[in-house]
């Protein structure tokens, strides 16, 4: 990856993070989960997927599904930066006049399918991948799964089916931020050894640093990882990445910040003083 490309990706990711921070007030959003997969989504749309605002009706384009739908601010920010819609539209977050809420809605250009209930879009992606195979299309189907989401049994059903159907055009990416809602994954439902689990299920597996664009480039350089096997990229990430004041904290999954805190967080994102946060987090446990 050239230095220019790298800087371009970093610059876009910074803008997407700004969008996410601005969406975390006046009702809030799942900021922690959104920041963990920001670099991943920015990388995919800018350097990997053949999807743009003009080819959405082309059956030969790639497909992208966000199964852990609560991190949709990262996707909306990326789509806005990629010109799928005007970034000004993000100001409609949580307004009844638009469709931008805490989970994806297909009325927003670039959203393939709604999600929010965990454990659904691996199987939907499997259907899309099966049809691409049936029609002999050479496109790729990418689905981002949360690591906490892997608690849902439907993912393991899907893992069996994808391997049995030899869906080597399917690429699942796990946003491995090591948290479920408010608890660390390994403290509640253990996932490790995660790579070995998927390998045993018949998948080709690669691991990457989900915040290092060069590492992502290496992981996404060649598919299928193994002939006739579905692909898994485990992207190691940090919840809340980019904001040291909320980074890797169990209680910063969903937050509704004050306008003042938003300004401090934007400053913090750009390397200035750490924000002093007083808003109470949402805890499901």
């Amino acid at each position: 990856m050239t230095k220019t490309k790298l800087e371009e990706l970093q610059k876009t990711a910074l803008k997407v993070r700004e969008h996410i921070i601005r969406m975390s007030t006046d009702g809030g959003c799942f900021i922690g989960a959104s920041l963990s997969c920001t670099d991943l989504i920015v990388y995919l749309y800018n350097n990997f997927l053949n999807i743009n605002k003009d080819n959405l009706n082309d059956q030969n384009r790639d497909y992208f599904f966000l199964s852990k739908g609560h991190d949709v601010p990262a996707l909306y920010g990326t789509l806005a930066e990629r010109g799928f819609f005007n970034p000004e539209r993000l100001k409609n977050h949580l307004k009844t006049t638009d469709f931008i809420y805490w989970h994806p809605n297909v009325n927003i250009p670039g959203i393939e399918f709604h999600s929010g209930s965990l454990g659904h879009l691996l199987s939907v992606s499997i259907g899309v991948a099966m049809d691409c195979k049936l029609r002999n299309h050479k496109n790729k189907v990418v689905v981002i799964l949360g690591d906490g989401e892997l608690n849902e049994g439907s993912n393991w059903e899907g893992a069996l089916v994808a391997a049995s159907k030899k869906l080597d055009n399917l690429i699942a990416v796990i946003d491995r931020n090591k948290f479920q809602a408010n608890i660390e994954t390994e403290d509640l439902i253990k996932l490790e050894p995660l790579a070995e689990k998927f390998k045993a299920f018949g998948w080709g597996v690669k691991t990457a640093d989900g915040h290092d664009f060069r590492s992502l480039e290496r992981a996404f350089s060649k598919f299928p990882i193994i002939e006739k096997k579905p692909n898994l990229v485990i992207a190691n990430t940090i919840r809340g990445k980019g904001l040291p004041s909320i980074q890797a904290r169990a209680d910063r999954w969903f937050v509704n910040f004050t306008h003042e805190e938003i300004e401090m967080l934007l400053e913090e994102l750009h390397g200035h003083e750490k924000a002093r946060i007083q808003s109470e987090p949402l805890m499901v446990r």
Partner: protein
Amino acid sequence: MTYEDVLKELVQEDERFIVMTAENRVAIRNLPLLIGDRFIDTGITEQTLIGSAAGLALRGRVPIVHALATFLTMRGFEFIRTDVGIGNLPVKLVGGVPGFLSEANGPTHQAVEDISLMRGIPNINIFCPADEEDMIICLKKVLESPSPFYIRYTNQAPLVKHSDDFEIGKAEVVSDTGEITILVYGILFNQAYIAKSILENEGKTVRLVNIRTPKPVDEKAILESVNISNLIVTLEDHFLTGGLYSIVAETLLNNKITATVLPIALENKWFKPALFNDVLEYEGFTGEKIAKRILDKLK
């Protein structure tokens, strides 16, 4: 023409159709050889079956999905509601051995709340054929409709020749006048027909309506029944809650009218597992027992 013939023809004529199953091939055993890669078996995975059917539909396909009615509608319920229902995708869900057809399998296999569950999901319609012939007459229109559909599959032999005048949302009025109306969907149609003959031998007149699509229901046929008859009987192999009795109640209330209605359904219990005819006998759903319940009501 058989069920398989209809599917084979549709798949061969129209590239949108895909036949899928969660390893339940009873109704479609010969299709893998006939339609090749347009037949997809996901194994015993109702969630993945329905989710992947939604994915195929996103690519323009019309998946015709097969599994036992209980597991399809209940194990897969949230996938139906969330992927097929919210997405309003043209997925056709075919439930095997619904209602009394699960015979001796026991309550785990008794889909007797399937109509209630499926009709509660916006966008999803329901087709319950009386018998195999009725199913074949209506099937093509149901499968070609842009709506998602839940279908109660049956291979029951017909007792009557059905009208081939079918539209979605239109009931088949088998006999149109009578002091009693029997409204029925699905396999109990034959028992309703037998009950009708018995009642006629007792000097009664019976209007018989085969509902065909409980959703969208033929409101006009229900309202006409209330105008024509003194007693309305709803007959179904389903819980009393949420099925045809509820549909009729909602329809009448919606039109600010009331009627004398005798519901014949499973009242808050699963049925005794046994062979089909023994289930009908034990639970009081044979033509004879239905006729007796109606005569008792008239006393």
